[in-house]
């Protein structure tokens, strides 16, 4: 089964592997007591954190065609290129952050061109070919997690409005493992995310240690005869068993790592500052989405993880997110909005207003990051965090020209305040690879990437 894997430089890989079992001393610091000096004291020389948050909103964006009176104002993409572009109405909420983000147009995953949309979420961060027999492949956040995930308690955080994995064509998660298996998103309620990140395991430490020991003894028992087996096998067979053994050893390493974190208390985070039980429908999508974004922010500020993916809007017609527009007082569900835009007079505008609502949520999140001093590095959280926001379709069924916003990461070398357009056919994977490299991952290629993009200058 051929899988396209990112090639990570061997030297860099060894370096990170060597660091696997070292605990970042900063992790014990609590949010409440956090200040930059303290962080510096406990982690002299530690690399400044580089963070990633990738956000997916399904079903594309409103793009009223030329000739439509709304084309000029409500078209998601700005009409001008370069630094002098004018924000269109759906993007206006970002006005205050103009020099902290860029709009990107033109990119798409060529592997997804033949498919009939609504099924792009699972491939957004992987760039895999849905028709390839091997299934999906690793997503870019997991590439980063393999490289840098060991520096935090949670190598990565995968959340979503729906939660779970979904199925192949209606993925509820953006994150996929090396093997192409989905990583189920924590979702449904903000509380689930909070519990995962900050709730303290109620079992006493002895019980947790016992559970690790159970895992160990199971693996020990399973492989106890492996040596005598292997000595009697041909080379091909031995290779197959070796692969199995490697999997066993890696799993044991994971157990060791998890146990090592046992003595590091989780950051104390006060649950009452979030609307943890915000229901996306009855409490309204704004409260729900904002709570999810706030939790990502808190995860970053406590250095619980540095990598997050968030499927904010699923693509399925049956997704919870389909109700968002109705909760906002529109008379159609999201799916209808994106399909029936030309059936009613205000179809385009309603859709575009909904897009704007999503961008408003993003803007609040970015402002939150921008307004928080990074406890572990110079600048704001946003300066050290790359936020990737976008959809796998431009209009609902058009799998090209993804609407993309890249924000933050100025300390990592990104330059903003511009609208960049790339030719149709330039793989979205090129952007993913560029971001990976910017985040310090020594990947040479990713999925079907053909090169990188220059995001370091405002052209």
């Amino acid at each position, binding site marked *: *089964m051929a899988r396209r894997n990112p090639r990570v430089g061997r030297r860099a890989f060894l370096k990170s592997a060597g660091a696997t079992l070292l605990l970042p001393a900063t992790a014990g610091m609590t949010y409440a007591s956090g200040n930059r000096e303290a962080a510096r004291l406990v982690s002299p020389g530690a690399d400044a954190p580089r963070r990633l948050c990738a956000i997916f909103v399904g079903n594309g964006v409103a793009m009223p065609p030329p000739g439509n009176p709304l084309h000029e104002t409500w078209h998601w993409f700005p009409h001008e290129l370069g630094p002098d572009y004018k924000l269109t109405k759906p993007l206006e909420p970002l006005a205050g952050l103009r020099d902290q983000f860029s709009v990107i147009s033109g990119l798409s995953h060529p592997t997804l061109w033949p498919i*009939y949309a609504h099924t792009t979420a699972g491939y957004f961060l992987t760039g895999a070919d849905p028709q390839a*027999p*091997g*299934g999906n492949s690793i997503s870019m956040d997991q590439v980063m997690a393999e490289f840098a995930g060991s520096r935090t308690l949670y190598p990565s955080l995968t959340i979503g409005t729906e939660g779970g994995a979904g*199925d192949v064509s*209606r993925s509820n998660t953006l994150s996929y*493992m*090396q*093997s*192409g*298996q989905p990583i189920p998103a924590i979702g*449904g*309620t903000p509380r689930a995310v909070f519990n995962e990140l900050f709730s303290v395991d109620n079992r006493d430490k002895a019980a947790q240690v*016992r559970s690790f*020991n*159970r*895992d160990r*003894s*199971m*693996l*020990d*028992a*399973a*492989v*106890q*005869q*492996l040596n*005598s*087996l292997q000595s*009697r*096998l*041909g*080379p*091909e*067979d031995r290779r*197959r*068993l070796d*692969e*199995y053994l*490697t*999997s*066993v050893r*890696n*799993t044991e390493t994971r157990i060791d790592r998890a146990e090592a974190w046992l003595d590091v208390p989780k950051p104390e985070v006060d649950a009452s500052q979030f609307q943890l039980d915000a229901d996306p429908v009855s409490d309204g999508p704004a409260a729900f989405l904002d709570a999810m974004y706030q939790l990502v922010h808190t995860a970053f500020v406590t250095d619980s993880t540095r990598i997050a993916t968030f499927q904010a809007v699923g693509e*399925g*017609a*049956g*997704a919870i997110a*389909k109700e968002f527009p109705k909760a906002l007082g529109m008379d159609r569900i999201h799916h209808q909005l994106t399909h029936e835009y030309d059936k009613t007079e205000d179809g385009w505008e309603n859709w575009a207003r909904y897009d704007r609502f999503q961008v408003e949520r993003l803007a609040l999140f970015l402002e939150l990051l921008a307004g928080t001093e990074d406890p572990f590095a110079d600048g704001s959280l946003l300066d050290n965090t790359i936020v990737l926001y976008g959809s796998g379709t431009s209009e609902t069924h058009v799998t090209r020209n993804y609407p993309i916003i890249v924000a933050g990461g100025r300390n990592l070398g990104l330059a903003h305040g511009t609208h960049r357009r790339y030719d149709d056919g330039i793989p979205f994977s090129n952007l993913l690879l560029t971001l990976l490299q910017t985040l310090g991952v020594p990947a040479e290629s990713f999925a079907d990437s053909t090169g990188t993009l220059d995001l370091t200058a405002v052209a």
Partner: protein
Amino acid sequence: MKVWVVAVLAIASLVFGAAVAPIDGATGPDAVRFLGRFHPLALHLPIAFLVLVPLLEACRLFPRAAWLAQFAAPVLLVATLTAFLTVTLGLMLAAGEGHSGDLVDKHRWGGVAVASLAAIALAIRSTLGAGAHSRAGWAAYGGVLAVACAVLMVTAHAGGSLVHGPAYLAEFAPQPIAKWLGEKPHDGAATVDDRGDLPVSAATIDRFESGVRPLFGRYCVKCHGDGKQEANFRIDDLVAGMTSSHEVHDWHRVMDKLNTHQMPPEDARPLPDDERTAIVSWIETAMKEEARSRRANNVTAYIRRLAKREFNHTLQDLFRVPANFASRLPPDPRSEKGYDTDASLLRVSEVDLRVYIDLARAAVDRYVTFGPPANEVEQYFQEFEDNYFYGRWRAHHLSIARAPRPVPADEFARRVAAHEAGEPVYHEQFLGALPFGPISSGAEDEVAGARGYPRRHEMFVYIPTRKTVGEMVVRVHAAATPAASDGAFPRLRLEVGESYDRNLLALNVGEVDVTAPTDEPGVYEFRFRLEDTRSPPNATNGGGPGRFDRPLLLVFSNVARHPDGVIGSSRYAQEDPSLPDAIRVRGRLPGNTDEVIEGDRVATEKLLASRPGLLHLDALEVSITPVASEPAVGWKVARAPDGASLGDEQKIIAGMLSEFLPIAFRRPVTDGEIQRYLDTFSLLRKNDEPYEVAVRETLAASLVSPEFLFIGNPPPEALFDGRDNAADIERSLALASRLSYLVWSSAPDARLRNLAAAGKLVDPRTLAEETTRMLEDERSRRFSDTFVRQWLHLDDLGNGTVSTDYYPEYTPELGALMVRQTVATFQDVFHNDRDARSLFTDDYLFLNDQLARLYGVPGVQGGDLRRVRMDHDIGRAGLIAQPSMLAINSNGIDSNPVKRGVWLLERILDDPPPDPPPNVPSLGADGKSLVGLTLREQIEGHRDKSACINCHKKIDPWGLAFENFDATGAWRDEVSVRLGDERISRVVDATTVLPDGAEVHGAGELGKYLLEERERDVMKGLVRHMMTYAVGHELDILDEQEAEVITDMFRTSGYSLKHLVLAIAQSDAFAPGNLETKDG
């Protein structure tokens, strides 16, 4: 200076042209190709003129001929112009004909260099004028001219090599010259230096270098070499050492093409028979050496991971429960031939391992219980007329409050008896028929979003159980009023799951035709595992987001179809103040506008007027039996008595392990092995784990061990060491597993294990008896089901294969039915031991009402598949023209003769065409209009292109025979094609001339042709496919020789598929490691 500008511009544009010309192996537009073909004609001009120029210039040295020198400049001008022309034509040729490769590149840039140098020379010459005032100028001119001529030679040689093959000049040249001319040593030869580990012997490789490679150079490389790669294949890249299965595969292809005289083609240099034989026999020898060396090294798929379905069946048999153990495992990769048994692909990654650990723990948690069986059956009885399901979330709590409650056994018996004694009273809502076409199923997909309320053809019943594991039996007392028109019966479906607000997530657990009359209702039973349905969140498993436990939901529906069928909301989902409703609910269901409700009312009246089959529900019995109360399910482990010592516990566990491990490991276990697991148990106990946890963890550990996860592990030596028949035992143990996984997809049973432990399976008669016994067992249906699905690629028929926009009557359910039809056809022939040739005839069809509609066969009622005799020719041909195959090999809208042809070649004749070359242009990419053409005509158009023709003339004729069938496999006489914005109808033409010249009209005749003219090929194809499935890797040459023998045995058996399985089980291919075959 002007002349320099012109020269530079000309050169620049030529270099630019050469750089951008699409020399990528794909063919270009016809006009380009036509002009390009003048390149071989034109090229003689620049060669002649350019060579002439120095001769003319040289005339200056001879006073009497000096006047000739005045022509040098004009000739150079002509040479330059023709050089530019030639290069341009050459670029067109290469782009148009689809040339590519190093040699082409060399020739291209050589040509560009010659033309450029000529232009430079011309420019210098023109600035020199007549006078000889610039010595340096003349020297430069001479130098450039000389270089141009030299480059010309090299380029011309490259061009000659392209046309005649690289060895053209060297072939008959005297040795020293040949050596100088000869191409650099070949890549393949490089590997020969490292002969230590090659599977092919040094002597054989020497024979290749001396005897075979020169023949390739003479006959093959012209089209399959550096310059041109017809069929995307290069013969000069083949490596004689055969170090990988890839190389073996390629050599195999070469041998086949030569053997069948497909190569060299008619218009190429003929290959004399003795030379052909020399090549073929060399390949055979090398391949045999490779196969033997592989077997000697035991690399022949000796050990492989259990496939997902094998893992599932093994646990089902181990825990004696028909539950699904593997749903969380990802699907297994398929081999090139399409099978999930390929040892080289079945791996255990870290993620897989974690899933295996979870699955093992889940299995022992559920199915290892402690103490003797309890009797904790939970029973419910409900008269349907008392069922209250108010299909609105606002009144959900009412529905839940009024749901049936579990009753004690005596009360249950009393109620059932009382029910039986009385007259049947039916629920007032009859369940009507559905229209044809897709019905949102309420399964776990997007349509669930619109579900959650019962509809016209459905009845919802809540069962407020807290159990999530165990056997559930649902007995429905029901009756039918058959349809007035044709007596069709309703079909009762039961789905089980949960509903939450507007979501319905339920699993179909069964369907049955209801035929009992209303005065005597029948009892219809559904039996399934509760753990395999979707249990709603309740207090015992975490609780849902609602304020209360969500009850388990049973959905009863009538899924029979009728032309006037209705999908509408039931009365119970609509506002109706007369309903027994404790609270008044305002508002309506989403989507229930006045219009919709009125439309529903009218449609329902119409439906009732046409008197369809109706389903009436009388009463419901439900029982749920937890695992601990099922004596025949799972493992019941004795509890350790209070105060028992670790030693006492170990005694209990040792006894348990000695029963459990031999099944899990598929062989007897040694005392040492039991001791090691006992040690694990003791360690867990010492770590303060409770007794139950320690037992379960110990057992789970055995289920993630390589002994469990892999087939073909060498058994511990202790099992045979020192015995007289040690070798027999070792081999028998290996055979037992391989056999049971072949026939049962699961572990050997006790009898087979005992025979293996005694070394008896090496006896061919015992092996035959056992195979026969296993084939008679019900579990052998796992083999027939899996094999036919993988053989015919049936799993490719998924959602979206057929466009429901074009075929509104097609549903995913119908697709699943098509697959079941094909499986039933194969299983009927397999298990009833019919002649396998009947797979390709239509004497009998497996049909139900829906399929009969698709076939246009009248008089078939009911939803169950049954064997129906056909008394006339239906123009199909068994498996190869069943709707499943036709739908899979369509583009969703129209037939796809190419896919159908490839499928037939791959699946039935086992003669797969080569992979298409990269950059295949799509139909119509050459700018030809496709307007108003049938797909058949479009495809015939593409066969005109020489780049495509060689492969497609072997593919398309097969597929065109099926043109009478549309994308759903239904018969058609006309096909609609697009003409502008309109669609027009064209008559279907299913006549086709097969590659051997036979003309057949349609699929029915194709079937006859296959059975009459190609019987052996078809049967050998089946043999080879089944062998590939059985042995777990691509067949090598020794396997193929056996395939021939097995095909003969198959024929002598009257094409009995069971005999075929037996023959394969007894073959050396199936049981490698047999020492006798290593030298054979």
